């Protein structure tokens, strides 16, 4: 049987590379992409765009369009999300929870549906510490930001519908760039933080020296989603697409970054910029408060980015991908080693003066 895949979030950082990947699958006949806003889609004969909005009932699709889609869809990959770490909770919930509720209702109307793949984040674990496993969800540890909380609530809703829909959840870690060439297609908080470090505007990060910095390659994320949604779909499963034990400690991460800056920008060395200090949360937020009171806009921007996600490092954890790796290994999918692709990403960012690749470079 050949699949008709319905994708939301097709123009986002993951979506840009996921679309070509899905189109290349022989078992995929058609890819219907829900588009919202101005993001460009790659041209491909399998791709059909429908305009809508996950925040709206029936995803904002016109009745006849919706009927045409639900009749044919066999697989849904739900990636549309508000991914800004600085979002207000209500704004994050509107997209991430409301949008998930809407697409689950939509999925329930699809008579041929075989797989509903919900893209989530490993940070639904919020402020939990220790080893986080794929089977874990419920907790009351709290969250670092509204993004985490809203994705957690979305997962709870997906889990509540698992008895009547074939669902799987793919939790992605922080995506850095492509493993092959280090290309970054869209900047996220991690890239901004690295840029601030380079420009001597990142004085401290919360955490411990041993806190793990879990980063993954974009292509690994994309391959994993394709595997989870199409080739190895298992109802009720949860995947951790994470670095797992292959992660830098925070101390290693900062040192490695410094050495890469030295290597690729020898003249940068004479600036003698220090690595950010690793501090406890209380001190970090005292610094944040001070900067916010000072009103220095440049430093304020830097601190705003750092405070939106870096406090996660103060809750040390290992995002275990042990169960996921069993499936990956059976499927011949190897996780790129951080020590191999991180240097490529830093080189890319420096060579491109911290700019990302244009969206139209997504390859087909």
């Amino acid at each position, binding site marked *: 049987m050949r699949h008709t895949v319905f994708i939301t979030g097709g123009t986002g950082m993951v979506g840009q590379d996921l679309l070509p990947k899905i189109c290349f699958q022989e078992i995929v006949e058609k890819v219907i992409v829900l588009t919202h806003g101005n993001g460009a889609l790659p041209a491909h004969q399998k791709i059909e765009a429908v305009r809508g909005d996950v925040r709206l009932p029936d995803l904002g699709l016109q009745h006849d369009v919706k009927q045409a889609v639900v009749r044919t869809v066999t697989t849904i990959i739900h990636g549309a999300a508000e991914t800004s770490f600085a979002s207000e909770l209500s704004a994050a919930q509107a997209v991430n929870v409301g949008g998930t509720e809407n697409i689950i209702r939509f999925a329930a109307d699809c008579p041929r549906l075989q797989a509903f793949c919900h893209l989530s984040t490993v940070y639904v674990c919020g402020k939990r510490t220790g080893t986080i496993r794929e089977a874990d969800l419920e907790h009351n540890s709290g969250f670092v930001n509204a993004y985490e909380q809203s994705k957690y609530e979305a997962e709870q809703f997906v889990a509540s519908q698992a008895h009547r829909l074939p669902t799987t959840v793919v939790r992605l870690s922080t995506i850095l760039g492509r493993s092959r060439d280090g290309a970054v297609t869209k900047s996220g908080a991690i890239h901004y933080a690295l840029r601030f470090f380079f*420009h*001597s*505007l*990142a*004085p*401290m990060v919360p955490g411990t020296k041993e806190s793990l910095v879990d980063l993954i390659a974009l292509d690994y994320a994309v391959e994993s989603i394709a595997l989870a949604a199409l080739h190895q779909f298992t109802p009720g499963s949860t995947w951790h697409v994470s670095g797992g034990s292959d992660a830098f400690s925070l101390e290693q991460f900062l040192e490695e970054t410094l050495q890469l800056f030295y290597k690729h920008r020898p003249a940068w060395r*004479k*600036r*003698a*910029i*220090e*690595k*950010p*200090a690793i*501090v*406890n949360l*209380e*001190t970090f937020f*005292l*610094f944040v408060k*001070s*900067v916010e*009171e*000072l009103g*220095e806009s*440049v*430093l304020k921007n*830097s601190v705003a980015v750092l405070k939106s996600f870096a406090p996660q490092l103060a809750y040390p954890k290992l995002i275990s991908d042990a169960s996921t790796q069993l499936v990956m290994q059976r499927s011949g999918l190897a996780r790129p080693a951080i020590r191999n692709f991180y240097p490529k990403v830093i080189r890319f960012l420096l060579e491109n003066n911290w700019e990302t690749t244009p969206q139209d470079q997504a390859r087909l």
Partner: protein
Amino acid sequence: MNHGISAIEYVLPSRSLSLCELEDAGLLVSRAEQLQGFGFERCFISDESADDLALRAAAAVLSNSSISPESVDLLLYAGAIASSHHIAGERFLSNFNYPATKLQFELGLTRASVTGISQAGCMGLTYAVKFAGDFLRANPDAQCVLCVSADVLPKGVQREILYNVISDGACALIVTRNSPRNRVLAHRSVTKGYYWDCIARKNEILAAYFPTAKNLVQDLLSGAACAPEALRMVLPHNVSYRSWEILLDLIGVKKDQLFAANISRKGHVIAADNWINLKDAVTANLLNPGDKLLAFNFGFGANWAATLIEH
């Protein structure tokens, strides 16, 4: 050979203004309330010149320590701003009228070589202590160095620099070979030229301050095999108490180890803070012989310095 600070005297102007008075006079950049939150209350403003304040402080330290002026081998005169390094006159040639030389004459330091430290910002007096030690080590016959700093901001200039409230003042130290007290055990300093432009690099300086300070202090303490908890007292430069709360955590020192009282009472007296604080801590009977003290300082010109002292 060891060296140490055997005597300290300082002079502050008689006139001081509260934060509200400074705000009303348009002498602050930030709101008074905000600076109060950073630990400041007032600052001292001089009607005298920097060299007059310097003369009073230096005369006092010589007199109170019973040091004969003729026994001073070197006079090091530090000032953070250019106007502290000449005695202004109508004619261009007055740029060569140096207060250090005037001080030598007024005090009768007939044997003393004289020079100034003019490009180290608030670090001037700390560098003077360091250079005094280097001088004594290099000159076995030399016994005594007089270190003086003095700064008076131009009239009407704002009293707030990088969120710190600035006082005028002068401080004089006697650095002697085999000093009976305040022995300098170790010193570390670093200059980071990237931050030389304190206007263009203001944000970067604010950001670089903490990690650089942390690394410098940790390097000093580990090199001297001194645990942070073994410090009897940290002698701060009187920048905002908020920034000290952050830095103390970074270097693993408790808040009650910081001699913080003068931040609110005296403000940031340019290069003199650490040593004024040492003097006041001694006067208040807070120190015992053998106590370990950490003096940390930062100055424009992008200098960070930390000195470990045994009282």
